[in-house]
């Protein structure tokens, strides 16, 4: 949005320092042995002091941990957008809009199920590009039509508007949610072109990977559940792993699908171990974790290859998301009484 010069040096310096403040793998091993209140205590002593203190009076136990994690994530990602200017801002915002999608979806679902707006409000992650003012207005409105009206001028308006008719006919939220996802993913690669070298190319490759894995995940789930859905409807343009017809063909044959991913020159090697497990066991979760870990490792490497580019920011964003998910998994796991080994299975540790 901003037209001023881009400032990757400044953003990089701040982001790298915050990256170092994240929990280390050592810390996770400590956290696995703690109960929910101890985890909250541990978080308070580290990065999450402010959020735990602010929410401590209203929530307790796992809820406290979960809401603090979301607040902290939102705070840090908002900071990123605040620091960045010019080109860097654009590159970061493209990815962070995924939280806008999440928020709008949550609000629409809340309205659909008549949930009070305070309750919806606590579930939002205000990390996206939509300003707080707009999000607050979205929380106040009472019908889905008004939600679409408030979003006028954003990139979600048109797809939502055209999906609304469909929603009125069927009464199901799926068309609206698909429209949101589609708007996000189509904008992700939108006008970037196809640079062939340097950090720009890596950035595009990174976003393509995001789309590819989303497609792969959807396809694997469809193949596994055997649901009778048209896979082309879930296909997202822009990836390099599948094209539309390939995806439709592969969904019916699970083994061929796994082979197709393994044969891909770009991802096959990196996901070797995960694909082997996917073949023998039926652990889709393990595969998703392996994908997350592979992406994170890759972005880490890129951030040392291209020190002054957007790579370091992405390595931070991914690492922070991973931290939030790991702590949440630990807290939830402890709550339902999983053993330490079982929780460790759920974590994404490099």
């Amino acid at each position, binding site marked *: 949005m901003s037209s001023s*010069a*881009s*400032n*990757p*040096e*400044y*953003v*990089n*310096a*701040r982001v790298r*320092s*915050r990256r*170092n403040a994240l929990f280390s793998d050592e810390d996770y091993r400590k956290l696995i042995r703690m109960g929910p209140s101890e985890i909250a205590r541990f978080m308070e002593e580290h990065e999450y002091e402010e959020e735990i203190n602010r929410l401590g009076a209203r929530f307790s136990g796992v809820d406290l941990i979960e809401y603090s994690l979301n607040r902290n994530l939102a705070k840090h990602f908002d900071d990123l957008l605040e*620091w960045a200017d010019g080109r860097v801002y654009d590159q970061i915002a493209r990815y962070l809009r995924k939280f806008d999608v999440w928020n709008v979806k949550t609000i629409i679902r809340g309205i659909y199920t008549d949930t009070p707006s305070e309750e919806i409000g606590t579930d939002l992650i205000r990390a996206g590009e939509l300003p707080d003012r707009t999000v607050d207005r979205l929380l106040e409105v009472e019908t889905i039509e008004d939600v679409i009206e408030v979003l006028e001028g954003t990139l979600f308006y048109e797809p939502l508007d055209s999906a609304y008719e469909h929603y009125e006919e069927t009464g199901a939220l799926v068309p609206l949610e698909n429209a949101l996802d589609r708007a996000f993913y189509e904008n992700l690669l939108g006008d970037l072109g196809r640079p062939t070298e340097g950090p720009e190319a890596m950035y595009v490759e990174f976003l393509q990977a995001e789309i590819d894995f989303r497609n792969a995940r959807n396809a694997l789930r469809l193949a596994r559940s055997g649901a009778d859905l048209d896979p082309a409807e879930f296909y997202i343009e822009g990836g390099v792993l599948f094209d539309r017809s390939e995806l439709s063909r592969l969904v019916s044959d699970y083994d061929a699908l796994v082979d197709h991913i393994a044969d891909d020159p770009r991802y096959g090697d990196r996901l070797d171990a995960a694909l082997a497990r996917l073949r023998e066991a039926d652990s889709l979760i393990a595969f998703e974790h392996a994908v997350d870990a592979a992406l994170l490792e890759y972005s880490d490497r890129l951030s040392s290859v291209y020190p*002054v580019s957007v790579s370091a920011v992405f390595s931070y964003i991914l690492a922070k998301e991973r931290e939030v998910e790991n702590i949440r998994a630990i807290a939830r796991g402890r709550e339902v009484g999983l053993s330490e080994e079982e929780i460790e299975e759920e974590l994404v540790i490099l």
Partner: protein
Amino acid sequence: MIETLPDVALAANSMAESVVLQAEDGASGPAIEQGAAAAIGIGLAAIGAGYAERGIGAAVVGALAEDSISAGIGILLTVLPETLVIFALVALFV
């Protein structure tokens, strides 16, 4: 990051042009005096140092805002490219 490069190139270009003009005027002797040549060298070195410090300065302010380095280290890193100008000063005295 690249936006400022054309300006630098432009400045260097116009300097080179004036040098060529002078060369056409003067029938004998070197195109420019030794002192003037050294001045051009120092000036270019200063432009280079300034450009380098721009990036480092931005990064240092960012790091200082996160409290990850001390102000002393920050200032030291920022002025490191200044050594370029000092080396260029050598040209004045030889």
